[in-house]
């Protein structure tokens, strides 16, 4: 299967996104907020007295009112039959989060999980997973928390682990890792739920989101299709309006779960996992639509120890793209607010708002429209830029989207399993044929009509790559603009 492309579609000399395959931990944070501050020589060393207040952590027991309905739910068949449970607890076994049901009612279960972890730990070993029939129990121990998934989906241990990692990152993102550690250093028995009020909603959304969206499986983001001149105009409008603002690290414009542009401070890149958390926050928070917001936000893969501050707003009533301006300064809301106004004016004058709206309403081409009737759907990921592209869904997957997701997850796992990763996979069954191909530059997953033969499959993959290559400027964010 040779293709005559010299460089894979979507490749660029510089990437806006960090492109590591490891989504696992913070061992390699890409950056440090300290560094940015020092670099930009913030003269005034505002020695803000941080009163480390060890006060009375008065327990909240008010909402422990016994509720029989809740009791019934966690003992019900419905609860037991859920496809995937996710639990978060502290090392001391205190319940923090349960995807379904009230975690207080499940204290006994959290006890069992904590016991399993500490029992294995006492032998200086770490529990990773338990397999019972088609149910997998996956454990992720990220001090000071324990995360557990109990899944009947066919996802692999690695894939489940990656989802648990996202949950952990979500928690770190609202508290910072430093603070999370400090809380438990001060008191092992702390009930973290009090600080996570409202965050359950973000975790719930994140789990649904990561089950549906291929971006999580691929570790990549999809861009909104835009003519490269339009995307460049948008980027330069942002650069123009923000270039004088010190310590602005990232400007991110997104719409409908797709990236429009990302402008960054020189030397700093964003990890796709962090960008996914941002997408999740924006999607799960309707309230951001009502006004300009100013919020602290920790990007765990960027720097898990501190907050960035984000000016978050939608561009205009008539253009529902969300702009985030992330800075290390906590006192520049009004400067960013003005910058946003300037950006919107410029975009309006250059008709970019219209272009964004058009692309949003147009949807991506389906395979048939693009001239590939034998294809049903595909995912193309360019590794060097951590971006991917997928066409619009066509029947039968408009109705059976879950089935498609499952196919992709399975193929992805076969290509990435640690024991015997495949480079190329071609499988046919009575419903469809799937081809998955992992090369140095890209990953490609293609779903064909079931009756296709090997030769024509190879043939159309070659044509498809050429098709993508021709449109790469539109489908991918190839420039990596900086302030």
């Amino acid at each position: 299967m040779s293709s005559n492309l010299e460089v894979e579609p979507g490749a660029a000399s510089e990437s806006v996104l960090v492109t590591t395959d490891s989504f696992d931990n913070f061992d390699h944070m890409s950056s440090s907020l300290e560094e940015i501050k020092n670099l930009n020589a913030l003269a005034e060393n505002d020695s803000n007295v941080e009163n480390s207040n060890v006060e009375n952590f008065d327990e909240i027991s008010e909402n422990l009112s016994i509720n029989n309905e809740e009791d019934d739910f966690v003992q019900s068949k419905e609860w037991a039959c859920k496809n995937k449970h996710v639990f978060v607890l502290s090392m001391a076994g205190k319940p923090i989060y349960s995807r379904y049901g009230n975690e207080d009612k499940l204290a006994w279960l959290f006890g069992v999980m904590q016991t399993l972890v500490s029992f294995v730990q006492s032998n200086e070993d770490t529990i990773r997973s338990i397999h019972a029939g088609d149910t997998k129990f996956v454990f992720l121990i990220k001090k000071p928390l324990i995360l557990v998934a109990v899944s009947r989906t066919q996802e692999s241990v690695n894939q489940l682990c990656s989802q648990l990692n996202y949950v952990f990152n979500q928690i770190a993102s609202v508290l910072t890792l430093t603070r999370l550690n400090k809380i438990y250093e001060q008191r092992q028995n702390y009930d973290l739920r009090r600080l996570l009020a409202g965050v359950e909603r973000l975790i719930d959304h994140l789990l649904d989101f990561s089950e549906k969206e291929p971006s999580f499986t691929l570790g990549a983001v999809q861009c909104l299709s835009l003519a490269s001149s339009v995307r460049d105009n948008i980027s330069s409008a942002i650069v123009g309006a923000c270039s004088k603002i010190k310590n602005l690290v990232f400007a991110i414009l997104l719409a409908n779960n797709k990236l429009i542009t990302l402008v960054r401070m020189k030397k700093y890149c964003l990890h796709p996992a962090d960008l996914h958390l941002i997408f999740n926050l924006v999607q799960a928070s309707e309230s951001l639509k009502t006004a300009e917001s100013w919020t602290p936000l920790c990007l765990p893969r960027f720097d898990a120890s501190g907050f960035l501050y984000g000016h978050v707003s939608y561009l205009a009533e008539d253009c529902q793209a969300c702009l985030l301006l992330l800075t290390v300064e906590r006192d520049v809301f009004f400067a960013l607010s003005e910058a946003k106004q300037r950006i919107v004016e410029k975009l309006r004058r250059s008709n970019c708002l219209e272009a964004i709206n058009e692309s949003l309403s147009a949807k991506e081409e389906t395979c048939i429209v693009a001239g590939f009737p034998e294809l049903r759907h595909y995912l193309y990921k360019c590794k060097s830029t951590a971006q991917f592209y997928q066409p619009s869904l066509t029947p039968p997957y408009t109705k059976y989207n879950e089935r498609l997701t499952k196919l992709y997850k399975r193929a992805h796992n076969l290509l990435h399993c640690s024991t015997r990763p495949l480079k190329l996979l071609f499988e046919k069954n009575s419903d469809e044929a799937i081809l998955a191909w992992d090369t140095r530059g890209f990953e490609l997953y293609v779903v064909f009509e079931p009756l296709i033969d090997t030769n024509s499959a190879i043939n159309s993959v070659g044509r498809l790559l050429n098709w993508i290559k021709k449109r790469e400027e539109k489908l991918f964010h190839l420039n990596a603009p900086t302030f």
Partner: protein
Amino acid sequence: MKTIVGKVVVLGHQGVGKTSTVIRYVENSFSQHITPTVGASFFSCKLLIDDITVKLQIWDTAGQERFKAMAPMFYRNANAALIVFDITLRQSFESMQGWVFELKQNVDNPMVLCVVGNKSDLAKNRQVNRDEAIQYAKSIGATYHECSAMHDQGVGLVFDDVARGLIRLLGNSSDHNLKVYDSENIDNIMANSSELEATDTGKEETVNLSINSIAHGNTVKKCC
């Protein structure tokens, strides 16, 4: 004609309807399915009271505990504070005291205080007595209003009262930090960004984990 620009901060327990109240006033709309505020949202509006234009810059803060560390950023240099509670939730009334204490400790310049009991449409589930609330408001030198953001009752009065309070503040005290302009043309005047104090963000934020104590020991610098 005189124009006053005042910074208003909205504080209170989560879920009491801070955002709903502000949105009811600023946009005259209401949504049942509003999601919790992330960080803080900024609104501005203008009122005309007896020939004086009062421009309110409203910081609607998030009620969730984890955002508590951010609050000083918004109440510092504020000219007015709306402290909102839910009349059907005793806990939200009691947690107001923490906010009031914090404001008294950390804000030196005089401030218009306004206690707001929201959700008056649910009066049959009332957990906080009206008289008790009035008395409490009086004891801290605040006015008291009950309103329903959902049914649009009494919301306008709250903001009207804040604006009048600001005008009184301007007349009565000399150490207020209200901005006053003599011309009408203030559209180009934005709040100075130095209103928010810079701190070191590279370090972790230390947050007060208890409602009943002071979050930040920083004294407040007087502005301009």
